[in-house]
């Protein structure tokens, strides 16, 4: 559970997370936007289906895998938000060719 300091400034970028409209700050990564939106977990694992959330925020742990604009298994902590971006949390194995 994270919140923004008053320093954070304007939330000017509109994205959707699982279809729900969310405002993010320009310069946020998708993973930061997920935390700011209060998303508890961003995926469930392919092996046991347990929930996971971003863990390292620097591109090494691959816990923050989400589907961004239809492309699955993207590292949310490495992708900056962009206006109109559609982010979907993932359940288990990623379907291909949808």
């Amino acid at each position, binding site marked *: *559970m*994270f*919140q*923004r*300091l008053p*320093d*954070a*400034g304007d939330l000017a970028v509109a994205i959707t997370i699982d279809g729900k409209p969310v405002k993010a*700050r320009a*310069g*946020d*990564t998708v993973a*930061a936007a997920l*935390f*700011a939106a209060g998303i*508890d*977990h961003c995926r469930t*694992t392919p*092996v*046991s289906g*347990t*929930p*996971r*959330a*971003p*863990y*390292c*925020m*620097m*591109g*090494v*742990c*691959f*816990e923050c*895998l989400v589907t961004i604009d239809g*492309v699955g*298994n993207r590292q949310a*902590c*490495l992708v*900056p938000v962009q206006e109109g971006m559609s982010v979907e949390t993932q359940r288990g194995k990623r379907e291909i060719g949808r």
Partner: protein
Amino acid sequence: MSAVNEVRDSYDVAVVGAGPAGLTAATACAAAGLATVLFDEQPAPGGQIYRAITQTPVQRASILGNDYWYGARLVRDFQASRAQYVPGATVWSLSREREIGVSTGGAARLTQAKRVIIATGALERPFPIPGWTLPGVMTAGAGQILLKSGAMVPQGRTLLAGCGPLLWLLAWQYLNAGVKIDAILDTTARASRSAAWPHAPAFLFSPYFRKGLRLMLSVRRRTKVIAGVTGLRAEGNSRLQQVAYRTADGAEIRLPADTLLLHQGVVPNVNLAMSVGIEHRWDDDQLCWVPVVDGYGGTSVDGVAIAGDGAGIAGAWAAEERGKLAALAAIRALKPDTRQDILPDEANIRLALAKVERGRLFLDRYYQPAASFRIPRGDTIVCRCEEVTAQQIIDTVALGCTGPNQMKSFLRCGMGPCQGRLCGLTVTELMAQTRGVPPAEIGHYRLRPPVKPITLGELAALPKDEAAIKAVVRG
């Protein structure tokens, strides 16, 4: 800033990573007139230590501290240089012929460099405790990145646990920002502290000594620090609800928690270096794999150097100097007639380096994490990607597996997308302990490219080089 389609077919020097080492290396190479490119995975320069330095929303300078803002000058110098900067770029392969595979924004390509300087820095040492995969548990580094890049701080009940300078720095920054920390659970091992004392006199002259001491005292004044913590566990049903631990006098304590930030030091990020076959050794002080490098970061692979914490942990100030040394070697090799006044001044660099590396052994020993936090037992998860437990790994030794590469064939441990970054050291030490041999004999995963996943489409769309294609189509 360049996109992948502006990546050229070849360069004099390719630098990987835009932390302090990569920035100074690329700046110096470009200043000497070498065609230089810097690939960085993050959207903005600075590495993790100076993360988001050009765009952080944290306006109050006192929150992050002067040592953070210092990084701005490295970025300024780099931006003023003629080096090509490719952000958001994942380098997924490097061959011994120094062919580099790189992707940005879903497009991949291959490029060639005469010299490669790997400046991929450090990552946090795995902290495999029960429950470390629960949402609500993350690394202290992750917490700091959220602060630097997004002015985001934890709310609710917040615990920091572990040992090492970064844990204290984050606590200090959080307190400066007005965050309430419920407690710091200090796992610094008594044995490590005693082993460190003989090196304390040297550390008294380290620039880190006064800073570290002041910072620690400031944190201790403002929040509760519980020393001698063992038996740390994160508990909860599908998310963190409480943290359990044992105190120095043996009491079992449970604290409700919404966020647990873990840290027990940093280790070199070796994946790219190992994938190109660079020789590494096991470091008994830092308890990790460290590439074997010469005084300029040169490695066992011709034309490939490593600068910064990726060549062994020594911190940001040392990284800055080591970047210049790697650049110096590249310039001397590629442009031996470069004027002295353009070359980095080696004597000055060596002096500065000696100063910041003084007493390093004290820090290494003092913050050496206890075995129980490095080598888990039972059903504690070791491999987060494939959800493999410590006991499963121990059991493969009985099947005849002598190292990680045999073990992984049975368990898929280390074969998930993180490619062993979060389990490699744990597996090496766990198998070493089980077999009763030194970690050096166990070895590490054989790491192969792509060192980061790429899509089949990216690979299929690699620009065709007819000569290369002919060379491989034989049967």
